[in-house]
């Protein structure tokens, strides 16, 4: 049985700001690995660059900390080389919705069996608070003195339309739900994305923990059917907003599973790995004589 202590590294500890939402996601991920009873050496956490992308350093599994925006294709390569591994992609809104958005779209289309955890704090924290693709419309701050005019990217709708087969939103203030979503996401055979609202306590002064507590609600408590694709799009449209609200108005933010679908995965359709993962197949002594003869 895998226990929490098996996942702890002894030579370092997280250096996120006190109160950072990343702590909640970190704990939830470890809880999920324990509840799924995964062998730590069969889990690979693949991340990009940003505060949240440091997470793999602090979980004792295999890890790959790559380039900004590029963890997705690294994870896809790992999964195709050895589909027996549990591969989890970790990144922020800059990684997944900015620099790496193209990779997100295509990985979702392929329905490769990955779980993607996006720590969405709606801001670039590590570089001291610039806007991200999910920053609310109308926001301004020190780095951007004029109100932002871009409509925020809607990660749920994007993932749905791209073909993701497990689409969920979590909140770093609800570890129980987050653990459950990660667990379900990993169990799901196919491309699972969990957009997790993770307040940046240092640079995002609007979307704080208390701001979210006043707005989040759980989809399952309102009878949402995650098998209904059209309804999933309708729920996705509830937030983020495409305009600035009046003072007395308050948005509602759905959390939980928006959509689930059974569809064959990229690995299923890759004939060469049906009998065994690539890395378990012999590459020795290949006879290429027939190929040379064809050229005569």
């Amino acid at each position: 049985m895998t226990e929490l202590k098996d996942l702890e590294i002894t030579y370092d500890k997280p250096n996120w700001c006190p109160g950072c939402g990343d702590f909640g996601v970190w704990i939830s991920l470890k809880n999920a690995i324990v509840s799924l009873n995964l062998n730590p050496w069969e889990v690979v956490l693949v991340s990009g660059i940003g505060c949240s992308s440091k997470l793999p350093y602090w979980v004792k599994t295999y890890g790959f900390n790559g380039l900004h925006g590029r963890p997705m294709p690294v994870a896809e390569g790992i999964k195709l080389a050895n589909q027996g591994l549990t591969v989890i992609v970790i990144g922020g809104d800059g990684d997944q919705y900015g620099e790496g958005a193209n990779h997100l779209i295509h990985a979702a289309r392929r329905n490769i069996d990955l779980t993607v955890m996006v720590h969405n704090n709606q801001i670039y924290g590590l570089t001291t608070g610039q806007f991200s693709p999910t920053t609310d419309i109308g926001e301004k701050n020190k780095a951007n003195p004029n109100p932002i005019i871009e409509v925020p990217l809607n990660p749920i709708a994007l993932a749905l339309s791209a073909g993701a087969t497990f689409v969920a939103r979590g909140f770093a203030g609800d570890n129980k739900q987050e653990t459950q979503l990660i667990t379900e996401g990993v169990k799901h055979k196919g491309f699972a994305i969990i957009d997790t609202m993770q307040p940046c306590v240092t640079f995002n002064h609007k979307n704080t923990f208390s701001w979210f507590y006043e707005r989040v609600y759980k989809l399952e408590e309102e009878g949402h059917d995650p098998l209904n694709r059209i309804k999933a799009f309708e729920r996705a449209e509830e937030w983020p907003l495409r305009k600035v609200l009046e003072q007395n108005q308050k948005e509602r933010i759905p959390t939980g599973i928006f959509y689930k679908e059974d569809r064959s995965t990229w690995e299923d359709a890759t004939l060469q790995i049906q009998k065994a993962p690539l890395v378990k197949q012999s590459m020795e002594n290949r006879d290429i004589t027939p190929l040379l003869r064809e050229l005569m």
Partner: protein
Amino acid sequence: MTDLQWLIGGEAGYGIVTTGVMMSKIFTRLGLSVFDYVEYPSLIRGGHNAYYVRGSDNPIFSQRKGIDILVALNKDTINKHKDEVSENGAIIYDPSVTKVEPQEFSPSILRVEVPLLEITKKVGADHLMINTVAIGASLALFYSDFGVLQKILTDVFGKKGEKVIQENLNASKAGFDYVKTHSAPPFKKQVNALKQQNLLISAAEAVALGAIRAGLQFAAIYPMTPINGVMTTIVQNASTYGIVVKEPEDEIAGINMAIGASFAGARSLVATSGGGFSLMVESLGLAAQTEVPLVVVEGMRPGPATGMPTWTEQGDVRFVLHAAQGDFPRIVIAPGDAEEAFGFTMTAFNLAETYQLPVILLVDKYLMESHATVPFENLSSRADSFRIERGKLLRDEDVAVQTDYKRYALVEDGISPRSIPGQKGGIGLAGSDEHDEHGLYSEDAHMRVSMMDKRFKKLDSAIPHIPPPDLYGDEKAPVTIVSFGSTKMPIFEAMSSLAREGIAIRFLKVSYLNPFPTEAVASTMKDSQKTLVIENNKTGQFEGLIREYTGFSVSDHLRKYDGRPFYPEEIVDHVKTLLKK
């Protein structure tokens, strides 16, 4: 002596390339030494395509100037190539499509009028099959037996079924018979079949076959001229050899997928051209920093930006040597012909895995898309003697007993034992950040220096195992040519034609651009009379490397950057001029 150069020209979309390869195959089956070279614009329909095929009963190494048989599928081909037709040559054209004026060719040139279009109608074939009629007509000019083409068509179209084979046979036989019955006087350059067992291969195919033999397991390739042939050949054989080939959304995804697969333990490859490589650059550094083995094929073509996408150049030398921020070790190898491409590709995989670093195979359009004959035995014996070397890749049982495994352990030769995910006891993190022995990010000054030095020690460890550059020709020759990559082909051709005139040449052919063979190059430079650097770029990137590493300046250089490869005649002329100086 037979030395026949044939050219087919016409609009793109009329199967010019297929026909060209077919003619190369005819020469190959007749036991000749063959070289072919194709020129085409970057579009699918229209524009001018020209396919040169040269066959000889003496060993040849490149295309040459002069066309002995010109097959013109349209007037444009006549206009573009009429001055290239040699004395006593022949032109084949359809008079209903192409008008040829009497003054356009000298009287020594045989005009072979073949009603290509009418013949296709007569045999019930599509009008697009005029190329097939033309190949039959061409064969009839220089060889008596249709059997050789019959066998090739049956082999080539075998998978497409009896109907397709028969259609092609009918069309080409009709062209063959037409020329046999109508052409008088006979064409002077006849071919006699030899008994040589050659195969016909492009460097693109050679890279693919080398990779397959070397144990390639994963490739992620975004299409781009001139490496598409690599992808096609691998894909067609992927299921036989257990190789996963994916077409990623872009080159950045491609290289990162390959890095991921390699990190997980699969032998991985990416292939691209300069534009795609530009996108891959940051990730090249990632492979180096995480010490993940990776083989990158970079097929050069004229840049910058889109440049001339279907033409050739050697303009990315400095780029691949310095690509990506920071200092890190890499190995860069430039094969000189298809056989070398085959061998170096296999070597590249072993080097990448033994030294845990990126290895770049620097090739170009000219090399990748030209076909040449190679004795079957040469490639099969290279394939047989190849052994996969995985370096310090740990076995499951070795990792299982580890108590404090360090992925980036600071060891004497710089090469840390490597675990892969799934191995119990080998848990570690591969980090893009500078890191300590566990892979944990580190900004410590001492650790930074240790890790930088460790990575470079791997290159020091590799150097003794890297073969010196090849030295060909006469030691006492008055001129030593120094070059790298695909220029080997026309240089060899020039050397053999100079030898026929009694002029001896020495040729130093550098394959490893990094680590650069400084001592060997310096010592050859030192004992050479005149030195001539030949390279296919404007600024002398390779010449600069020689000066940088050896301190020697060369006597002269020959450069070209018009998108075309060197012709042996240009080298011969240049050498003769240099000798007079």
